[in-house]
């Protein structure tokens, strides 16, 4: 590939993004370009006979192909209790505050295959708060949402997740919450009783609910500065005063003006509270 070929590819990426937007209303124009391009190249490989132009054609003309593209561009990669210290902090520092609310609403945005949803449900169950909690689990990847509802995962993940669970301060063993069959584990469906799974696009849709806690980890890393900021503003509107926001442990708020509305509870673990220090006392 010489330099004209690589520029050509940049043009194709741009045109695909435009096609998705004009034809289907999905706007990836504000995603971080480097990783978006990588995923588009992979899609071209698996779905476009190797060219992005072929993807564009299919996006424009083939009913049903949009879903394939959305699934290819979304990254539903997750773990239960990923970054155990974060879940420990939620358990030890955040839930005790939430306990003072008669009804607790949690919005988990970008829930992928639901691993973190079940992790949160287990935390709440063990802290005796789940009966009065509603978890809203959203994603824009319809097939990921369906899998999230089923709660079925490869059994080979169980070992890592069990370790994570214990490191996060789990009171039992993770195996108490799933049944294993063949190569799969299935999470106890009772954990789902207070979860509402819903399709929500952070780029286009409005505030989803009023929440005391928003968990949105490793989603904003895919967004440009402007879209990250806009999404933080969405979370700000969704949160009650003093409500908590939990982001991925390597996300940076240094380029988002909206970050000024959030005060770190544990900056290293990316747990914040809405409002200045004085506003969140007590």
């Amino acid at each position: 590939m010489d330099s004209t070929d690589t520029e050509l590819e940049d043009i194709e990426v741009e045109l695909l993004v435009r096609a998705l937007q004009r034809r289907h209303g999905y706007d990836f124009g504000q995603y971080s370009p480097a990783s978006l391009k990588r995923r588009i190249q992979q899609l071209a490989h698996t779905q476009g006979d190797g060219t992005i132009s072929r993807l564009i054609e299919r996006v424009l003309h083939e009913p049903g192909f949009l879903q394939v593209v959305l699934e290819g561009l979304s990254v539903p990669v997750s773990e239960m209790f990923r970054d155990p210290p974060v879940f420990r902090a939620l358990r030890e520092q955040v839930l005790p505050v939430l306990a003072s609310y008669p009804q607790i609403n949690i919005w988990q945005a970008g829930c992928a295959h639901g691993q973190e949803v079940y992790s949160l449900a287990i935390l709440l169950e063990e802290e005796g708060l789940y009966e009065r909690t509603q978890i809203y689990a959203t994603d824009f990847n319809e097939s990921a949402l369906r899998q999230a509802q089923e709660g079925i995962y490869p059994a080979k993940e169980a070992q890592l997740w069990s370790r994570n669970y214990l490191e996060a301060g789990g009171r039992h063993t993770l195996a108490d919450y799933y049944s294993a069959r063949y190569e799969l584990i299935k999470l106890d469906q009772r954990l789902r009783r207070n979860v509402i799974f819903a399709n929500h696009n952070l780029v286009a849709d409005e505030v989803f609910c009023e929440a005391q806690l928003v968990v949105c980890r490793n989603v904003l890393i895919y967004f440009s500065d402007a879209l990250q900021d806009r999404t933080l503003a969405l979370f700000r509107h969704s949160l009650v005063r003093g409500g908590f926001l939990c982001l991925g442990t390597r996300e940076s708020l240094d380029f988002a003006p909206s970050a000024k509305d959030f005060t770190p509870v544990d900056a290293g673990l990316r747990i914040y509270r809405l409002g200045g220090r004085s506003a969140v006392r007590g």
Partner: protein
Amino acid sequence: MPAPQAVVLGCSAGGLAALETVLAQLDPALPQALIVCCHTGSSDVGLFCELLALHSALPVAEAAERHPARGGVVHVAPSGYHLLLETDHRFSLSIDPKVCYSRPAIDVLFASAAAAYRERLVGVLMTGANHDGASGLAEIRRRGGIAVVQDPQDAEAPSMPQAALDLAGADHCLPLQQIGPLLNRLCLP
């Protein structure tokens, strides 16, 4: 030819010792950003950065999301994330699936850096026991950047540099001890 703006370095098994050797020999006046992807298998590269800093002629820090790659600094890919460069030379992270069983993957860093720096990039691939980095290095060459590969016979684990030579070839293939001095020559005006 204009001087490179950045150097990307990839390694795996035996990588810590190899990096220590290379970074110790660098000229502290290097104006380029150095960006490292090493499969450490640990969940936190903080300690890895500290160990490198003991030997490095230049300051070492974990690459921070959205922050620019800075000249004269060694940036290290965080554990558990792919590290990418945007065209404005700022860092992005992703948790896309592993590549060559690795996250961070050298291929992901190299390919994105190749797009961001084009011919003003040096890619260095050293010891390792898989084939990560080979296609990334090919991408660097395609964009006109310079490819440096550790001589497999000199590497603690030869398969990674060998895979790179097979797929991408190299502008320079040499033992570890000579990589630092070569980088100084390539990078300093």
